[in-house]
C-alpha cells in the first residue's frame, strides 16, 4: 500500500544489464516498412463497414413521442440529448459505486496525512446518486426510458472500467485511487457542461437550471478530490498553484530569449 516505496522493480532494462544488452545485440532482419500505415490499412476496411454500437431507444410514452417527434421535425436532433442523458445517468451510477469502493478502502486505511474525511466522501457518494436520479427524472420527463442503455451510456461504461479496476484493487493506495476518481470527476464536469448546452439548445429551461446546480456541485467535488489527491502526494494547494503559474510563464516566454 506504500505507493512511494523504492524496491526491486524488475521491469526496466537497468535491472538486468547483461540480459538487456544481449537482447539488443542481434540486428533483426526486418524489411523497412511503415507499421502505422499497415495497421491503418487493416483498420480502414472495418471502420468503413462498421455499424454503430446501437441505437438510442425511441421514447415510449405518448407525450414523449409527440414532444421529441415535434422537436425532431425542427431538425434539432433530440436523440443526441437522450443519448447524452443516458450517458450521464450511467456515469453517475458508476460514479456512486466508485465512491462506495473508495469509502470502503478509506474506512480501513485512511490516516490523517490528508484532509479527507469519511463523512465528506460519503456525501460525495450520495450526491452522485442524487445526480443519477435527477437525470433519470429528466429522461422520464422527455418520455424516455431511464432503464435503457444508450450508446454513449455503453461507452462511458467502457471508459470507466479501468477506473473501477484501480479503486477496487486491494493493493492500491488512497492516493492512487484518488487519481482515478479525479479522472472521473474531470470527465463528469465536462459531461454536465455538455448536457446543459444540449438542454439549452432544446429550450428546456427548467432542466438547464437543475443541471446547472448539479454542475456546481460537481465542480465542488472536483476541487475537493483534487485537493485530497495533491495532499496525498505531499503537495499543498499553494504548491500546485505555483507550479501551474511557472508552467504558464515558461510557455509564454518567447522562444528566442
Amino acid at each position, binding site marked *: 500500500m506504500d505507493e512511494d516505496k523504492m524496491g526491486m522493480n*524488475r521491469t526496466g532494462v537497468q535491472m538486468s544489464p547483461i540480459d538487456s544488452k*544481449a537482447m539488443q545485440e542481434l540486428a533483426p532482419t526486418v524489411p523497412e516498412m*511503415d*507499421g502505422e500505415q*499497415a495497421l491503418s490499412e487493416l483498420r480502414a476496411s472495418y471502420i468503413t463497414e462498421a455499424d454503430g454500437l446501437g441505437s438510442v431507444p425511441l421514447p415510449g410514452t405518448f407525450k414523449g413521442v409527440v414532444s421529441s417527434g415535434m422537436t425532431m421535425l425542427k431538425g434539432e436532433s433530440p436523440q443526441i440529448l437522450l443519448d447524452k442523458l443516458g450517458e450521464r445517468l450511467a456515469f453517475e451510477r458508476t460514479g456512486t459505486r466508485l465512491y462506495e469502493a473508495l469509502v470502503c478502502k478509506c474506512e480501513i486505511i485512511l490516516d490523517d496525512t490528508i484532509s479527507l474525511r469519511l463523512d465528506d466522501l460519503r456525501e460525495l457518494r450520495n450526491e452522485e446518486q442524487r445526480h443519477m436520479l435527477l437525470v433519470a427524472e429528466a429522461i422520464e420527463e422527455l418520455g424516455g426510458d431511464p432503464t435503457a442503455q444508450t450508446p454513449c451510456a455503453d461507452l462511458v461504461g467502457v471508459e470507466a472500467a479501468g477506473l473501477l479496476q484501480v479503486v477496487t484493487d486491494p493493493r492500491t493506495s488512497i492516493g492512487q485511487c484518488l487519481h482515478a476518481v479525479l479522472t472521473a470527476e474531470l470527465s463528469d464536469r465536462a459531461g454536465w457542461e455538455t448536457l446543459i448546452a444540449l438542454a439549452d439548445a432544446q429550450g428546456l429551461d427548467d432542466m438547464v437550471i437543475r443541471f446547472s446546480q448539479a454542475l456546481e456541485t460537481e465542480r465542488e467535488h472536483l476541487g475537493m478530490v483534487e485537493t485530497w489527491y495533491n495532499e496525498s502526494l505531499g503537495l499543498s494547494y499553494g504548491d500546485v498553484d505555483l507550479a501551474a503559474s511557472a508552467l504558464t510563464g515558461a510557455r509564454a516566454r518567447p522562444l528566442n530569449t
Partner: protein
Amino acid sequence: MALSLLNTKGCDLDRQRFTWRELVQTPISKLDDDAFTRVRIILMNGIETEAIRFSHLAARCNADLRLPLARIRRVEQHQATLVNWLLGSDHSALETTIGYEQVAIEVTASLALREPDPYLAQTFRFGLLEDFDHMYRYAALLDRLEGKDANNILQSYTDILPGRPTAVEHRAPADDLRNNYDRNQAQFLSKLHCLTLVGAEYQTHDYYMHVGPQFADPVARQLYAEIASIEEQHVTQYESLLDPGESFLEQWLLHEANECYNYYSCVEAETNHQIKAIWERMLDYELGHFQLACELFKTYKRRDPAEIVTTDLPRPIEFKSQREFVRQTLAGEVDLRANGPRYVPAADESQATVTYRCHMNSQGSPTEQVAAGYVWRPGTELNRNVGVTH
C-alpha cells in the same frame, strides 16, 4: 535430492480442502516479482486445466471411475482457481499474453534440451520457433496498440525477434499430426514432457479464444484469431505425440504424475516465498491424487504403477532464460516445415498445406501487418525519432 514419486504418500484426498478466501489470495506483483514466477503460475494453470479436461473426458468413457474422478476433479478445479488467481489485475489481456508466450518459449526450450527422444525433441523445437514468432507479433501489437514495452513483462529473459513467420505456420491438418511415442519404449520423462506441452498449449489456445473478442481494435481481433488457430494446430501436434494405446487409467496415472513433476519443479525453483508455500501445498495434494490413481490402476488393471513411472521424479524443469539454445535453434531450423509427421525443407511442403495457407492469407495476414517493419527497442519503438511529425 530427488523426490520419490512412488513412496511419498502426500496429502490424503479427504484432507484436501479450501475456503473461498484461500482460493483468492494476494496476487504476485507484476512489477517486482521475477518473470519466472509468472511463468510458473501460467504453466501450472495450464497443467491444472488439462487435468480437469482429461478427467471429464475419462468420466464420459468410464462409469466405474466417475466417482473418484469427480472427487479429484473438484480439488483440481480449486487448485486451478487458486493458481490462476495469482495473476494481478493490472496485467492487461495483452500483457498476460506476453506471459503466455514466454511460457511457450522458455518452458518448451527447457524441455527440448532435456528430451531424450530425438524425434520428440525435434518436434518441441519445431513448435518453439513458432511460439517464438508469436511473441514478436504480440510484442508489436502491445507496443502499437497500448504503447507498452513487452520487455516490462519479459524482464530481458526472452528475445523479441521474428521466428518462423506465423503467416507460414498455417498447415493442412494432416501436416500437424506427428508420430506418437511408443508407450512401452518411451521414457517416463518423454511422456511428462508431452503432457506438459499439451496442457500449456491447450490453455494458450483457450486463453486467446477467450480474450480475442474482448479487444475493440480489429488489428488485435484478427491477430488473436490467427494465432489462436496456430495454437489449435499446436495442440493437435503435441496431442498426436501421445500413444493412443494408453488406457484411460494409464493416462490418468501419467497426468497425476505430471502434475507432481511440474509442482515439484516449481517448488525447487520458486523465489517468492509466499508462492513457494503454495507450490508445496499443491505438490502435497497431487501426490495424494497420484497415490489414489495408483490404487485404482492396481485394482482395475492389475498392473504395477512402477511399469509406467519411475520411483523418483526426474530432475526438475529448469526455469531460466534459454536464449542461446533458442538462437541456435532459430539459426538452424527456422526454414523447416512439416509434411505429414516429417520435418522438411520449405520446398517440400504438401500441396494441401500450400493451398490452405494461400486461401487463409488471401485477404491479408494479420501477423504480417501488425509487425510490419517492427524492431523492438527498450521503451517501445516510439523511443526514437523524437520530433517526427506527420
